[in-house]
């Protein structure tokens, strides 16, 4: 087992609608998807984004896409038309998620990036 950042095994994209942010998290290889499903849940997101005070966090599982989709409400300070953040869309926050540390079984390390 090796500890590494999600960034090594998955990629992500953030999108916004109003005060709601969604972040997709996609395994680089199908073999890595169980690591995401087992170790990246609503609880982990709640810790990562605690400082944004989400009113709710929902995880959707898309096994055929080897992906998870997280929806976080109330984290954008009112969204693009209200927030004072330089990044009022929250576009950069996908990489907040990719900084999360997870445990990857040795047998799967061959799928990790960079290679």
């Amino acid at each position: 087992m090796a500890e590494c950042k999600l960034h090594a095994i998955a990629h992500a994209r953030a999108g916004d609608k109003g005060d709601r942010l969604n972040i997709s998290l996609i395994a680089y290889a199908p073999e890595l998807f169980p690591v995401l499903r087992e170790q990246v849940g609503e609880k982990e997101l709640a810790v990562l984004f605690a400082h944004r005070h989400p009113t709710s966090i929902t995880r959707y599982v898309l096994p055929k896409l080897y992906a998870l989709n997280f929806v976080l409400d109330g984290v954008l300070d009112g969204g693009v038309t209200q927030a004072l953040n330089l990044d009022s869309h929250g576009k950069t926050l996908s990489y907040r998620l990719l900084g999360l540390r997870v445990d990857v079984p040795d047998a799967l390390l061959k799928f990790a990036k960079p290679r």
Partner: protein
Amino acid sequence: MVGRMLVGSGAGFSGDRLDAPGAVVRELRSSGERSAIIFETLGERTLALAQLRRRVDPAVGYEPKLEPLLRSILPDCLDGSITIVGNFGAANPPAATELIARLVRQISRYARIATVTGDDMLGPAGLEILRACCDELPNEKLLVSANVYLGAAPIVEALGQGAQIVVTGRVADPSLTLAPLIHAFGWQEDDWQRLGRGTMAGHLLECGAQVSGGYYADPGFKDVPALEDIGYPIARIDADGSFAVGKAAGGGLVDRRTVTEQLLYEVHDPAAYLTPDVTADISNASVSELGNDWVRVDGVTGHARPERLKVTVCYDGGWLAEGEISYFGPNAPARARLAAEIVRKRSPRGLRIRCDVIGVLSVLADDAGESWELLNGIADSEAEDVRLRVAFAGAEKEQVERGLAEVEALYCTGPAGGGGVRLALRPRIAAMSCYVPRNSVRPQVHLRETGDG
């Protein structure tokens, strides 16, 4: 009956690359297949900004770059029977149609151009509907724009009348793609499965290069060839709605990863992606690579469309100001934070203020700034090249300007070694959404012929 159709993307937002549509049109024309090209240039606030321009000059208010976007592709589209559909009409579709008609005459062609209206809810009838449906509708004097998201239906009607170019204002982004598919394949308006598939093909196209390698690269992890010359996406759709996505010649790439990122972009519940046309469902979708930058998407379906339509209401949001100053060398972050404290203490009460230290922590924190404390370690930075940014928001311009003046005053009164002050002030547009009954909305289609027949 048509068996297959290609739809290409010419633009994914207002401000997109102007030379992108050329390669897409060349690919569509050389394919010999039935084809359309779509232009999505209308972000949430773009329409409100267009409405403000129209107030100043009633002849404008459409996409400002419409002429350079269309000029070079118009001959190929008209000669090659490539349908053009765009929401580049923004706040003034009739004026955009006028401009396109002029371009058509300039190249000595003939064209049937349709204008779709009825999305603008700021007239007396529209306002009455809004007042009945929107609990928190701002004072009417503050309203800048209110536009309902139309679906594919009026575009299909326009195409049925023989339109080669369709100009719209606010239309749901995927409807731009779905409409030419409904027209070509004769899909029924309650054929939810096909409508769901066509909608997701449109969803993949609506942000332009975001599915063909744009907004994706991460060097060493996700490498993309020739980002400076990305080929924009093209979808190949069959009569049963099944589809694949590829791209025009040039750089970029289309693979399982780019398509999956864009499939989930701005999606909440994957089983219920709502548009005026259908509730699309990608919960069972899968993606497979066909090679040569083509990717097939399977398993998309759909359910009954929502009964209410979304309206985006934009209104006067007061003023936003931003002031910045740089600090360099030993103890730079501490000096920047001291400067921030000075500005906070001296700024007028009632302003919303946010301080960031660019180079240490700038986009992660929330507006309240609590995260400075929560994110220990990041805040104790040893960065030596940082920039304080202070953002102010308030209803009164004068008050916001007073806050901004406090940033400038840091030159002589702030911590040691501050330099490079920049100040910016601009009016702000706020937005809210509400929902109105479908049957209260009445889109109109107006067809005009222009040029040499």
